[in-house]
């Protein structure tokens, strides 16, 4: 069993608080992604878990043991480094065997495990090579094979795919996910690539300035960001944010933007007393070519056809929005379009704190169908 628990973990470098009070519970065999921009503390947090950094405060538990003061070798972890850290003076075979030999495994066991790990990563034919004779992708495979060979309880990955070229990264992402699903290890995976996080993790911990700002499954984090940072960081394009005012007269509420206003259905009671930002995903905005009730006028700035959809940049009053539209719609630049901002897809944020405000009537995407074997 290897749950992981961070309790109020802090780590500073001089005056810089790299990790600033992180609490996180990771279940046994769970795959948790630490996601955030560079300098957000995600790698430092991972290194605190690995024992490569001493925490300045708080505790780290691995399994049922307090690992806070244990050296890396006693934590039953394995790690894949961003630079791969494949030992240049050893052949691939000896690299993969390194951890097993340190554990004083008998020779046949070492051999069997090296070959099975190499087999999982499809590098059996490279066992006799030195790292300088390998490509970046092959080195990456060696690093992963070395990490899984010891069958550690916890697998730590520090941006393992970031040094690969785009095509290889795409390929490796799916392969790595499939591989990790087949292992029994609890996995903590650090990345700054939100697509990687969304596509791989059971849960995502979004980090900013040394803190975890949101923890949830990929769909939650994408669809229901806890604040403007998460909404702006996750998703491509990022969530649109527009300054808005909501006024209530009689039974209906009206949202007023710089480019127009429209009627809100659903509850707005929670919004009272806040300076508001209206957040909405590019694909949650409907586009019409003629005016109608409840639509907001916008002017097309540029259209980017992306194959699967077209990405539209429009000006709506003083705001610039990204809108994704169907691939067969090509509005001309400088032409007018009318936007439908679906009230249930709007995520309200407090303009001053950036924190999400829930009205209770939003529609959230949910993972409804799970097919099990």
């Amino acid at each position, binding site marked *: 069993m290897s749950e992981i628990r961070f309790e109020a973990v802090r780590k500073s470098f001089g005056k810089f608080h790299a990790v600033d009070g992180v609490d996180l519970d990771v279940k046994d065999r769970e795959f948790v992604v630490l996601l955030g921009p560079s300098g957000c503390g995600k790698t430092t947090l991972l290194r605190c878990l*690995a*024992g490569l950094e001493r925490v300045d405060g708080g505790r780290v538990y691995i399994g049922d043991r307090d690992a806070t003061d244990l050296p*890396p070798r006693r934590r039953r972890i394995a*790690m894949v480094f961003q630079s791969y850290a494949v*030992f240049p003076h050893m052949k691939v075979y000896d690299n993969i065997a390194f951890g097993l030999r340190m554990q004083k495994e008998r020779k046949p066991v070492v051999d069997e495990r090296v070959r099975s790990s190499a087999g999982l990563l499809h590098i059996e034919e490279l066992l006799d090579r030195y790292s300088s004779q390998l490509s970046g992708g092959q080195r990456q495979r060696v690093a992963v094979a070395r990490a899984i060979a*010891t069958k550690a309880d916890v697998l*730590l990955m520090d941006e393992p795919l970031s040094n690969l070229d785009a095509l290889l990264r795409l390929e490796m992402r799916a392969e790595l996910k499939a591989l990790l699903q087949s292992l029994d290890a609890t996995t903590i995976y650090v990345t700054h690539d939100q697509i990687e996080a969304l596509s791989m993790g059971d849960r995502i911990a979004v980090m900013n300035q040394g803190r975890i700002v949101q923890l949830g499954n990929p769909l939650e984090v994408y669809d229901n960001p806890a604040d403007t940072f998460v909404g702006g960081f996750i998703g491509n394009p990022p969530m649109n944010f527009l300054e808005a005012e909501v006024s209530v007269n009689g039974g209906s509420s009206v949202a007023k933007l710089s480019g127009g206003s429209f009627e809100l259905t659903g509850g707005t009671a929670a919004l009272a007393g806040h300076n508001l930002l209206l957040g909405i995903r590019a694909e949650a905005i409907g586009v019409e070519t003629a005016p109608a009730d409840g639509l907001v006028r916008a002017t097309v700035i540029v259209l980017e056809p992306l194959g699967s959809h077209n990405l539209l940049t429009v000006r709506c009053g003083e705001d610039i929005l990204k809108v994704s539209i169907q691939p067969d719609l090509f509005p001309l630049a400088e032409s007018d379009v009318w936007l439908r901002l679906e009230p249930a897809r709007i995520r309200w944020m407090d303009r001053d704190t950036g924190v999400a405000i829930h009205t209770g009537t939003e529609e959230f995407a949910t993972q409804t169908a799970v097919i099990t074997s």
Partner: protein
Amino acid sequence: MALRQIRIGRVLAYVAALVLSAFILAPIYLITISAFSGFDAVYDYPKNLVPSDLTMESMNIFLDSEGVTDSLLRSVYVAAITIIVCLAIGTPAGYALARFTFRGANPFQLALVSTRAFPLIIIAIPLAVTYLRVGIDDTVLGVALAHVAFTLPLTVLVTASVFAGISYELEEAAMTLGCNRLSAFRRVALPLALPGVAASSIFVFVTSWNEVFAAALLTLRERTLPAQMLAALDTSPLPYRLAGGFFLLAPALVVIFFIRKYLLTTWGKVAR
């Protein structure tokens, strides 16, 4: 046109390389053939560039001369002690400079370099007096310690840059795979640093082997080879001097020859 310029440039580069090589190799060659020529050939003028007869005559005279074999052995001891002490202190010190940020690291490095600025002449008398007081004058150990003092600063700086060139992540990876700090150093950092450490030990060896001033100053009877030769220089014949010159020259060349693959390559390629 451009192609022609490239070709001319390449020819010039080769000419320059040849001139440089000749500048280094010509004296070595002349000393070597003279050391293995007969007495008459040594005094020949103009020199015969292709030796007509190779004999061990000069060599034998040199080796049979009084004190030569003893001083040769002493030189070997001094060089060995110097290398061992330099590596034993210099490698950890270089590692510390490369891996740890500590208060005073920069002044420390500066101080190391500045020791090279001291002319030996200035410290010669105090050094001799100190040696007499401590009682290590005229000993192999004493000479070796002086040589350590000359070579240790550069050993530290060279090994520091060698270790700085080896990614610390490699050692961290070893630690996550079951090593403690020491075994990570021994199994990963040290093997990777070996070429650089070998290079710096060659430097130490050559410096110690050829060092004459301190050796002559600090010894009377227990002379190393250069000190012995210096003492005998004005009273000995030319063949003796040439044979001695060869002896000062040859070991360094042999060592470099055998160690050169560690200097240039590691494990198939440059260690990174």
